[in-house]
């Protein structure tokens, strides 16, 4: 017991002594805090940081601690070259100088009666992310938009704030791909009463973003000096990339009571030629978002002047409280202004009425997160309806409803997107279109511009945007007519839009059936047909290459004449020349066949039967293969003219029943008489024609022209390949068809008419040694 008492006594005395000692120590520390808060003690504390995985070091430290009262102390710290680094050195930061002052007191609780000034200058920081630290690819959980309440915590509510400036001149984030770097400046601007008034954060990103400049600033202020949740956050950002991008945005967020927040955003951007503007005001409540948006896009494509949406309501409502996921809905009238066609004068602009202004209504509904992320699934519909447009030039109406679902980050994998398209463009009077385009670069050429009627283009049907890459069913129909022409066509095909797949081109693939087409050929007049196409041999090589590069629109037309042939009307054929087409037309080439059907035509002064002529198109067009037969029936015999070879150099030969000599057949064809009955000019023409045909020197066009008209005479120079035929169109009119205008050899005998010739020759008289030039007008006949 005694021992117990003794033990208790000793313990009491010891405890009392210790308490006194502690009290004395605490009293000393509270009275002289510099005893424990000094550079030496801080130096001893460095290993403590290491224990927590960091390394802290500084060049010099100056610590002042003063006790304003036993429970109220003030500290003034100053460091130079203060650096902190993680143990693996992947994260590190330094400040050249750091000074901070604060007061700490106990007044019913821990409080900071004063904070600041704080100045951290010359800061640098590096954050390195080795590949192993790449973010995981698994879909993240849908983030929830939770705007925090911004109020000063209890220890700081009565704090007297002095200016705070933290300047990080370079903050670098190093990843495997690149280094991104920028600067940060955080500052507070206390009011004259030393309350925390405004906090400003400025950031400039200057490396690794491919931009000339990217700067952003956030400014948070509070009327109650952050004693209540009445803050106002203003954010602004500017981005510049010379010649490509220039954008700025301003956003304002502030609490609007009832736990909701008001968000106002204004943004403008200029991306290349396009100018974009967005303005929205929304109220973000608990699990819902309601707002209106006004947006415009101008100049983003030459065909469209601009697209405008004004006060479009949109909203988001959580489907499950607190989940952050809900349904988004947008109902927006959109006005699209098309670029006017280039008209040469104001007068034309008055005459031409084009539906330049399209009114669309877009309604979108989708299931998504309130804060959409690439990894979160979206699902919804987009209805775009074109308000019916009726103008003098054309009508347009239609709608498109698109259903889609998928994860944006995985696009197009796993996506479903189908569109029901019902779009229709119609030209009520083709002549209006002809007049409208007449002075433009896209004028309808003659003879089609003489036609009148309707033209209809329909995009109608359902398409799978993902699997068919934006292919829309397309219909095309014309019902055009003029006094002696028809142009009724019916086409079905697909339109593939380029924006669906990156790098792809907008393309049209169509089967065009020429149901009833009759076109008039020009009158050839009194001279030979001029060249209607640029000579492919003469071109600038660089220009050709540029053209190829600039092609962004691909097309493939399969043109057929399933029912009626195309009929070509000409003064040179008795009836319309029936032409059956089976063509594949692409930007690069035209292939397929052109068949001229059986018809009667004028062949060398008499009616003959074209049994058929097929041209198999090739590149170049002059190399196209031709195969045809014309039959001329005479009282005593039938003559077949076979045309084979290429268009430029057809090989023409003759067969007859009963068999006749070549000269007899050509004579019969050219003049309808036996060779022996011909005069000198005619028989010479027969020989020349035969030689030119045999040597493939008459192009198909010239042959057609030659065969269709009465032949006066034919000259052919086998040395130069020059072929010239004079055909009599009327009693007083001669047409010259030639393969080469420039003659290289003068003949000494020139046919005049009938049997008359001019004959010049040299008469050598060896006996009398005389050389005499003679010019004779001579009448010659073989019999």
């Amino acid at each position: 017991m005694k021992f117990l008492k003794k033990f208790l006594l000793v313990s009491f005395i010891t405890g009392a002594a210790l308490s006194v000692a502690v009290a004395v120590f605490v009293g000393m520390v509270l009275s002289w805090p510099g005893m424990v808060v000094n550079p030496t003690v801080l130096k001893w504390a460095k290993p403590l940081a290491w224990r927590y995985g960091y390394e802290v070091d500084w060049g010099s430290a100056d610590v002042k601690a003063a006790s304003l009262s036993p429970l109220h102390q003030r500290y003034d710290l100053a460091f130079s070259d203060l650096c902190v680094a993680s143990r693996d050195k992947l994260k590190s930061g330094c400040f050249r100088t750091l000074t901070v002052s604060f007061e700490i007191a106990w007044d019913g609780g821990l409080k900071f009666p004063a904070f600041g000034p704080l100045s951290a200058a010359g800061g640098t920081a590096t954050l390195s992310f080795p590949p192993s630290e790449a973010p995981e690819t698994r879909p993240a959980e849908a983030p929830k938009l939770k705007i925090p309440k911004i109020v000063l915590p209890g220890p700081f509510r009565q704090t007297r704030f002095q200016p705070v400036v933290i300047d990080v001149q370079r903050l670098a984030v190093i990843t495997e791909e690149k280094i991104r770097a920028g600067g940060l400046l955080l500052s507070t601007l206390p009011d004259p009463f030393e309350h925390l008034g405004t906090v400003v954060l400025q950031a400039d990103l200057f490396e690794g973003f491919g931009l000339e400049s990217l700067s952003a600033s956030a400014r948070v202020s509070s009327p109650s000096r952050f004693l209540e949740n009445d803050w106002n956050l203003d954010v602004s950002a500017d981005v510049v990339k010379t010649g490509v991008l220039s954008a700025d945005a301003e956003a304002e967020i502030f609490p609007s009571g009832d736990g909701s927040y008001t968000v106002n955003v204004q943004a403008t951007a200029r991306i290349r030629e396009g100018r974009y503007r967005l303005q929205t005001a929304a109220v973000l409540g608990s699990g819902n978002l309601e707002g209106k948006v006004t947006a415009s896009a101008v100049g983003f494509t030459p065909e469209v002047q601009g697209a405008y949406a004004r006060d479009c309501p949109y909203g988001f409502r959580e489907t499950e409280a607190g989940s952050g996921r809900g349904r988004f809905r947008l109902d927006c009238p959109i006005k699209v202004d098309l670029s006017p066609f280039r008209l040469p004068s104001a007068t034309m602009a008055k005459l031409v009425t084009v539906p330049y202004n399209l009114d669309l209504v877009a309604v979108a509904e989708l299931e998504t997160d309130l804060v959409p992320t690439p990894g979160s699934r979206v699902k919804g519909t987009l209805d775009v309806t074109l308000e019916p447009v009726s103008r003098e030039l054309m009508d347009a109406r239609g709608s498109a409803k698109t259903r889609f679902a998928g994860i944006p980050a995985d696009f197009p994998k796993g996506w479903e997107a189908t569109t029901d398209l019902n779009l229709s463009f119609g030209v009520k009077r083709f002549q209006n279109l002809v007049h409208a385009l007449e002075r433009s670069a896209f004028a309808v050429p003659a003879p089609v511009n003489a036609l009148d009627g309707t033209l209809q283009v329909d995009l109608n049907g359902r398409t799978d945007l993902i699997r068919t890459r934006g292919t829309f069913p397309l219909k095309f129909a014309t019902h055009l007519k003029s006094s002696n022409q028809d142009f009724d066509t019916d086409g079905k095909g697909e339109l593939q839009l380029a924006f669906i797949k990156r790098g792809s081109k907008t393309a049209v693939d169509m089967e065009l059936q020429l149901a009833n087409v009759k076109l008039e050929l020009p009158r050839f007049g009194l001279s030979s047909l001029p060249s209607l196409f640029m000579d492919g041999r003469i071109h600038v090589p660089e220009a050709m290459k540029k053209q190829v590069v600039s092609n962004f629109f691909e097309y493939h037309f399969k043109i057929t004449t399933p029912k009626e042939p195309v009929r070509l009307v000409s003064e040179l054929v008795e009836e319309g020349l029936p032409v059956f087409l089976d063509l594949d037309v692409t930007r690069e080439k035209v292939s397929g066949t052109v068949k001229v059907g059986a018809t009667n035509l004028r062949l060398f002064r008499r009616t003959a039967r074209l049994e058929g002529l097929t041209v198999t198109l090739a590149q170049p067009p002059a190399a196209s293969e031709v195969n045809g037969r014309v039959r001329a029936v005479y009282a005593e015999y039938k003559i077949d003219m076979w045309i084979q070879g290429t268009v430029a150099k057809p090989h023409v030969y003759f067969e007859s029943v009963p068999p006749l000599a070549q000269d007899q057949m050509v004579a019969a064809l050219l003049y309808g008489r036996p060779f022996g009955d011909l005069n000198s000019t005619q028989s010479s023409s027969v020989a020349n024609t035969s030689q030119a045909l045999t040597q493939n020197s008459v192009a198909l066009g010239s042959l057609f022209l030659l065969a269709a008209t009465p032949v006066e005479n034919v000259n052919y120079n086998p040395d130069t390949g020059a072929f010239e035929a004079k055909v009599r169109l009327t009693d007083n009119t001669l047409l010259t068809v030639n393969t080469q205008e420039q003659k290289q050899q003068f003949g000494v005998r020139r046919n005049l008419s009938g049997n008359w010739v001019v004959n010049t020759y040299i008469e050598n008289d060896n006996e009398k040694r005389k050389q005499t030039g003679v010019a004779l007008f001579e009448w010659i006949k073989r019999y």
Partner: protein
Amino acid sequence: MRRWISIFLRGLTFLLVAVTVSSPPAHAWREAPRTPKNQPPSVEVCPGRVTVVGAKLFKLTKVERSFVCGDSGSDSWKRVPMSQAKYHLRTFLQERGRYQPEFSEDGDRLIVRLGPLTRVRSWTVNGAPKDADVQDRRRVKGRILTPKLLNEIEQWLVRRLKSRGYPCPDAKSKADPVTGDVVVEVTPGPQQNVIAVTEEPVLRMNPGVPRRFDAFKVGKPFNDDLLSLSADRIETDGLLQSTYFKTTCEPEGAVLEQKTFAGRPRIVSVGFGANTEGVVLVKGSWKHTRLEDNASLFEAEGFASYKRQKLAVSSRLYPFKPTSRWHLLPIGEIDHQRESEFHFLSGDVQINAAGGWDDQKIGFKFSFGPDLNYVETYRGAQPGLTRFLTLRSRIELMSHYFEYYLTRPRTGYRASFTVNFGNSNLLSEVTAQRFLLDGEYLYNFRHYEPPLLVFGVRGGLYGTFARGDAATLAKLPPNYRFYLGGSPDLRGWGRRELPSEDGALSAAFLSFEIRLAELLPGGFQPFGFFDAGIFGSKALRFDAPVYYSPGGGLRWESPVGMIRGTVGHGFKAGGNQAGTKDGHWQFYVSFGEEF
């Protein structure tokens, strides 16, 4: 007086032809613009719609105007939109060598500035074999670049290759319209020999007859020029109305198929005109070109002018196989000539054996046989009737290219040698032997194509061997005496002016000519010449003076034939010039005549 009439007629012929050929169509002046002062010239292509500015003369053909201006006569082509007019104009301007036109619009009017003319700056031929000698071609650089010029270049290359043994060549060109650079890719194909010739049969004519005219040999290298020459020979002869060769390239060589247009065998012709001797003439002939299956010929020809009347009957009889060129050549001829130096009537009967031969470069023809000649001389020698029976032989050699370019002389050579042997013991009244040797050589400077300079040399050596006594000389007919002067030999002297009215028993001349060919526009070719000649009173013995004549002239290839004008001055040098003709200026205008 007669000379002035002659000059007048020649000049009239020249003027008629020149005016007829060179008159431009009336509409060429109709569209000449009328431009106010201080304004750029302009041409209204389509009144009120299309105006060409900056050009004094611009013309579209009527059908071109339809495509640009529209055709009021066709409902469908009445309106041609401006963009289509631009397109067609751009195409039509290409035909005129303008590839950079500028278009602008002034209200409803299209203003066209034609832009610069593109001329060929350089041209390159790739793939041509060395023996094609494409560097011979000139007149490409500097010319206006048009599709027709490319055609011309391609066709020339094909022709050139066809004449160098490549029967199936091809040439494709391309050109840069801005720089004027032209590149031609040539595919010569194989160099081949002719391995076979077939011909279309002609009714009542043996196969093989056309082979008599061949200027080529089977088994020798192909040459398309020789095919043309062979066909020309047949047509000129009248055997067939027309013929040509079709060539097929087989692996073994070139196969020729001769296409024939026989025509009727009988040819009758009647004509009137003028010749360079300055006389109006009428001419008629009748001939049968295929008398029998071997295509023997019979011809009767009459000719009449103020100075000369002639009636000739001749025949070519082919007794051997159809391809044989051996034939009999009977000729009967009555000739009446009235010249300033002589006046005679002659009757001539010949029976010749004749033949010929060709290889790849030259053709050779010969004939020989008796020639019975009666001459009734009224003036110029001893008047009265003279009878000759001579053995006449003639050999003629001509290079193929001389013959090929006969109407456009530029290269080749020819020579002929004619000799007559007569003896008083054999039906002749005098013993006299005559020979005529003449020749010509043309050189195309550096083988340019078309030629730039053509050098020509021609000469003749003539002689009559006869006794020099007065009786013999008096009986010698005019064609046994030799004269020089005129466009065939000494162009600075009058026609047949030298040495005197009596002529000479020997004569020789040498002419040089240099011609600037195909350089000046319009087909005009200036030339200079120097001719020299000499005479002798005995065969092959010549006496001074030497007559010579420098001069110059102009040649024009008109569409109806060759017209040449020369001016020269006659001179003489050496020897005893007493009694000889004095030199003077001499002008000639000739038609159809060549050096």
